[in-house]
């Protein structure tokens, strides 16, 4: 066991305690949390900083408004309902079409008006929000994902998660929905995590749960070697999030829209650690490399370039040694 601990340390694995204690507590000021925890605020911020986001159709914040849902919706037939304070993808309902009085969800199931309204009241009542406070239901346009991804996804929308530390993208992965995840790009729910080479935007091997997968379980397409389109733009966008919300350690969730290119879906102040499994690499060594830069005032573009040049697959991460660990603690 001691042996494994040492190996994991050398591999630069970032543990949950370390992420919480040394990064989130230190670099994520609590006053900035609402900017990411409240998805409505987050969207406003993104627009302020000219970062592209899915269009907000409307908000439902009062119980009686659920009855007027159709008016808010207008003639949109494809949309997503999200709790503004949701976490971990809970409470997200994806509607891909309407047929007479029914809605069709991402699995192709028919949903009647009542079910939809009940879901809205659950969201407003705070069933999915942190701490159970009353919440607001957001209705967003549905993202039509870039067809480049079509062989790597089952229903749902694949997204790209980039961890940004002090404004520098340090690691990225793509999350591919599967039949098991009901079209949701959430690793907890069974989506596949795929590491992405930060230099090129080419996918590497994937993981489902904790085990490696080479092919998408539903489409059978090989997972590795796929070029994510518009990669340098994605890196720049995620780097810009640092200025937008002021969090030193954040996860940016980006989707590729067929028509609008990369869109920022949401930001996360406590991004999960599974990205390390998807990339087969520890985050710690990369975080330390950013720390080693010291105080610089680079533009988001410069930071994205630096990250691409430093954290590419052709330049292996330096193993973490004990001196570095001591220097930071």
């Amino acid at each position, binding site marked *: 066991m001691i042996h494994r601990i040492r190996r*994991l340390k050398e*591999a630069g694995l970032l543990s*949950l305690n*370390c992420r919480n204690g040394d990064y989130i507590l230190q670099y994520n000021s609590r006053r900035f949390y609402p900017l990411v925890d409240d998805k409505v605020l987050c969207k406003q911020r993104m627009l302020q900083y000219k970062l592209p986001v899915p269009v907000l159709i409307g908000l439902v914040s009062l119980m009686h408004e659920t009855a007027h849902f159709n008016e808010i919706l207008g003639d949109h037939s494809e949309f997503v309902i999200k709790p503004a304070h949701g976490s971990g993808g809970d*409470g997200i309902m994806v509607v891909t079409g309407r047929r007479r009085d029914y809605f069709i969800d991402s699995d192709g199931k028919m949903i009647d008006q009542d079910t939809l309204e009940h879901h809205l009241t659950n969201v407003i009542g705070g*069933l999915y929000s942190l701490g159970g406070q009353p919440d607001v239901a957001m209705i967003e346009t549905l993202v039509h994902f870039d067809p480049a991804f079509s062989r790597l996804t089952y229903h749902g929308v694949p997204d790209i998660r980039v961890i940004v530390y002090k404004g520098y993208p340090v690691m990225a992965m793509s999350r591919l929905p599967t039949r098991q995840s009901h079209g949701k790009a959430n690793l907890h*729910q069974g989506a596949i995590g795929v590491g992405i080479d930060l230099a090129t935007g080419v996918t590497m091997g994937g993981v489902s749960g904790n085990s490696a997968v080479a092919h998408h379980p539903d489409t059978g397409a090989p997972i590795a070697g796929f070029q994510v389109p518009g990669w340098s733009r994605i890196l720049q966008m995620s780097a810009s999030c640092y200025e937008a919300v002021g969090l030193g350690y954040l996860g940016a969730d980006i989707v590729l829209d067929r028509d609008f290119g990369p869109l920022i879906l949401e930001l996360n102040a406590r991004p999960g650690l599974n990205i390390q*499994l998807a990339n087969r690499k520890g985050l710690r060594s990369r975080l330390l490399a950013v720390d080693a830069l010291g105080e610089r005032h680079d533009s988001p573009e410069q930071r994205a370039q630096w990250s691409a040049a430093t954290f590419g697959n052709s330049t292996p991460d330096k193993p973490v040694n004990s001196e570095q660990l001591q220097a930071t603690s």
Partner: protein
Amino acid sequence: MKRSRQWVSLSLLLILLGASSIAFKVVRLGYPPLPDMESAAWSLQARLQLEPESGAVRVSLLLPAQPSGFNVTRENFISRGFGLTLEEDPLHRQADWAIRRLREPKVLYYRALIIPDTQQRAFAGRPDNPTPIPELEEPLATALRDIVADVRAESADTRTFTAALLARLNGAVADENIDFFLAELDSGKDTIDLAQTLLAGAHIPTLKLHGLLLGEEADQRVKMATLLAVFNDTDWVVFDPRTGHQGLPSNFFIWWTGDRELVTVDGARMTDLQISDKQRMKSTLELAEKRAELQDSWMRYVSILQLPIQTQAVYEILLLIPFGILVIVLLRNFVGFSSFGTFAPVLIALAFRETELLKGIVLFILIVSLGLFFRFYLERLRLLLVPRLAAVVTIVVLLMTAISLISNQLGLETGLSVSLFPMVIISMVIERMSVVWEERGAFASIKEGTGSLAMAALSFMAMSIDILSYWVAVFPEINLIVLGLIIALGRYTGFRLLELTRFRQLAVKPEPAK
């Protein structure tokens, strides 16, 4: 760097504070570190029998003042008809009884409870003046000088001088000068007086210690014994003049010191003086509290045993919660368990205290699964969130009542102890489980529910360690140690046990750099 040092010092400070407070109570005040410990205490009684003579009667009894190694408590005097005054000095206490006319024989009693103390105390101060050489007639004066010269030649200091002298006095070493003195000795005088005279010949201050060996002859007429204390320029050293043994026996209770008589009577005749001691086993805890009270130590207030009994019962549970929480911290941040609600398992664990572990788990599973069943039905009714939660709470209460009624009919007692089951917590667990059930499937939901239950069980086991409930009652400051530990754990940023498995793939040897 600075901040990291601060938590270390805070945590150490708290642990130190708690530990030293407990140590003080155990070592200095004699609080028992284990429950149900008993210690010996003695009831001491002096019984004076008086026969009338004539006129006003005055009786003085010397009282124990500062007995080294003991505390005197619960003193009482039985002396109907007599006026009683107490004279209290740090080193001298006495009771004075007085009566104008004594018409018939009368018995006076003095009673006290003697409890052992944890520390030795000085029984006398420094002697003031150098002891003068006693003025004796010849040839005794010469004999005295000879003895002092002989003994001094064989000794190095006051202590060895006294030992050598006592050896001669007791006949262990032959000395004709001593025999001369012994022959001169009045029959009424004791060898101890002779020893004092001889020691005075060498300018050595001496003091008689009168008292009794506790626990030697239980419940009988006890003979008082006298020891000799010798001042060796810094301390008093105690010798038994008859045997020459050095040191104060731990069970020797010093009643009074010096040349005074224990009892002096004016205007009456004392026909009998009877001293008796009786050993009694007392709870060590009770004695420690008494001792703390006598020493007026504020430490005695740091114990929930000071509170009214109903409040005590509440605090015995409340003070255990930090231990349960410590277990949760360990399980979450070191092992990597997750549960519904941060500390919900502790509250469930508290409920287990009423039901016992296994039965509690069965009840919990029963209520949660029935509740889940109703919760899924409520889901179909499309109730709003708050009324639905309220309905779940109500259903849980009804379920608990039903379980109690049924088990009462069946004659099972477990179902009746359900009352303290935290129904709101259980309702929240049901709600969370059903959400997870829908969002992530039955497996994830049951897994998380089982995790919560396992944490509750472990937390319960920690809280039901018998010794802990005793410790928190007597040493509530033990929670300072727990707080210190929790703060120390709060800066643990290493791996969790389950992370070692979760990220095992990263533990493969890194490829050599190209």
